[in-house]
């Protein structure tokens, strides 16, 4: 059985709210924090990284599968909610990999509780205002345009058409709209960053941290990597050429290699 075939939905209670978590494989736990358009589906990197590990992907409240928790109104609220899940399931310290919005959530969790993570992988994380360029405003674009802009070259990204199962069904349209609405509740203003995050990270996070970024990222400009790098002592940046916002599918092999080596 491939890891993909083993993916199952588990439902947990966190406080008085539900949390649905996609789980696959068995072994040392790895927490995966998905992006702002929702869980994009099982890709090659999921298959590779779930070998010998138990991969847990929480589907955030309000993003479609898990019901909305009305009190969650900021990324920090969501980070604390997910941290509670990790603590209560006795998963800490856990390795984490966060993509875009998920990277921001991981950084907030680490800033709140440095002991929660053993190793951190941030993939083109939002959360810090880039010193050059602006984070692309997903709220003024249709979901599919935002998705398209997330890769540098669709024709050279074989897995692009698999993201969100192609993204064209009415069900997926609804899922995108759920994700966009909840992201708006979390990150409308300031848009996709928290001005206090660099200060909260600085001198706090000691877990080994890998920051992966496409040099041609049109969603979150790669200039923000320097701030993450400076704020998290001992972190290392891997900047990929010819790559946009999705190193995990655009430079899949290189990504898998870097992350596997890092996580060990």
């Amino acid at each position, binding site marked *: 059985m491939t890891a993909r075939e083993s993916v199952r939905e588990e439902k947990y209670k966190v406080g008085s709210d539900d949390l649905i978590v996609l789980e696959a494989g068995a072994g040392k736990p790895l927490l995966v924090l998905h992006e702002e358009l929702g869980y994009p589906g099982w890709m090659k990197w999921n298959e590779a990284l779930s070998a010998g590990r138990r991969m847990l992907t929480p589907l955030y409240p309000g993003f479609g599968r898990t019901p909305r928790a009305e009190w969650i109104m900021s990324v920090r609220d969501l980070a604390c909610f997910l941290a509670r899940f990790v603590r209560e399931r006795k998963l800490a310290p856990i390795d984490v990999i966060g993509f875009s919005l998920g990277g921001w959530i991981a950084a907030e969790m680490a800033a709140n509780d440095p002991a929660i993570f053993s190793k951190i992988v941030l993939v083109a994380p939002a959360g810090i205002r880039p010193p050059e360029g602006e984070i692309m405003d997903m709220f003024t674009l*249709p979901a599919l345009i935002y998705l398209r802009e997330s890769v540098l070259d669709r024709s050279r990204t074989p897995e692009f058409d698999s993201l969100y199962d192609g*993204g064209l069904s009415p069900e997926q349209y609804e899922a995108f709209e759920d994700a966009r609405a909840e992201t*708006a509740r979390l990150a409308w203003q300031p848009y996709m960053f928290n001005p206090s995050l660099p200060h909260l990270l600085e001198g706090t996070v000691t877990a080994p941290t890998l920051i992966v970024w496409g040099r041609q990222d049109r969603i979150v400009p790669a200039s923000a990597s320097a701030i993450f790098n400076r704020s998290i002592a001992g972190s290392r940046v891997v900047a990929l050429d010819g790559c946009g916002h999705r190193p995990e599918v655009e430079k899949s092999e290189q990504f898998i290699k870097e992350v596997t080596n890092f996580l060990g």
Partner: protein
Amino acid sequence: MHIMWFTERQYHYDPETEPEKSRDLENRILRNRSFFGLPNQNFDPVQGSRLLNQYLDEKIYSEELGFDGLMLNEHHGTPFCLGSVMDVEAAVLAKATKRAKIVLLGNPVPTVANALRLAEELAMIDLISGGRLVPGWVRGAGSEQLANNANPAYNREYFEEGVDFIIKAWTTPGPFRYEGKHFHFRFVNPWVVPIQKPHPPIWIPGLVSPDTVVWCAKKRFPYVALATRLEPTVELWNLYTDMAAREGYQAGPENFGYLQPVFVGDNQARAEELGKRFLYGGAFAHFARPEWMFPPGYNSKEATRRMARLPAAANLPGKPIHEGGGNETDEELEEIRRGVYARYEDSKRDLQMIAGTPDYVIPRLRKVLEVLRPGIFSFWLDGPVGYKDRLRCLELISKEVMPAMREIGKELGLVDPFQRKPGSVPLPAGRQAERVAQVDALASMPA
């Protein structure tokens, strides 16, 4: 029947006296695929000043012409409407007129970050006008949320909480502290409160969103449908009537209003030509691009579900309408323009646009009144039309159309909210509510 008139106060040039400028602006809007978001380098403040004063003059003159109400609205970031802060215009009218109601349909509560400030502005207008204010509230178009940085995912929550707060600020003795979900005020004590007690009458405009219709019925606020198609309007008014029955009252014409696009002229062909321009100036098809009309969370989940299954929904995945926009040749623009104006025949048939001489217009308006039976009626004039033609239209409405409508209103028993308080007719439990709209009347549309 309460009769008023409305215009979007569009930024435009008269196509007959400034054809090149008019065509150039129209082309830029078409290339942009949207009124909203047209770069404001296209705005000439001198022209804007001239137009704003013209629109105010028209409104002041229309009180002399006998209109009961002067209706205003508000839009942002668009040449579609120069009234970006409607309360400023309302304040001018409050002082410059003596009799007509000043009807604001409506203040976009979610986009106003400070609901207390809104309560104070409106109270001042009520005082200056001597108690002639009719405030109304809207959620604001999707694009309005972007233009004001108002989180669209909380739009309905802001709307409902904001309206409740404004009424509370007007009616609860201050000072008091208010801690809501989205609004927080530590010292609510507006010195200026409305002259109308317990507060000015509130009317709510809309585009037949079921959520808003139900909310209005519960609050006993009259609902004013903004030029919506007759069949869905009847359905939604039936919904209102049913909800009213559950709340224990019989809805009547006083609970409903309708906005009707009209152009009246001395000559049928000329009036229709001018009426056609409404389709350009008032057509919602290109008010804003779909991604701006429906920002995240602006629609309810049910509305999103319906939209996801519309085969032609422009915002559906794979159909980004704005792609390819902006580089059209003149011929291609002509074709788009022809497409816009070609809708005139449909609009004419469905009574969505009634343009003609008084003799042509009156029987068609009678049909609308027979079907919807509204106690509030507003004429809607729009599109790039010169001042002289607009004034002539208003005069013809005043002298020939409005008297006929008042007679029809009496005949049909169309009482307005000032004649009978909305929600004041009790409906005993278990008694069937009478429908206000008469769907049967749809069967015999004028040829």
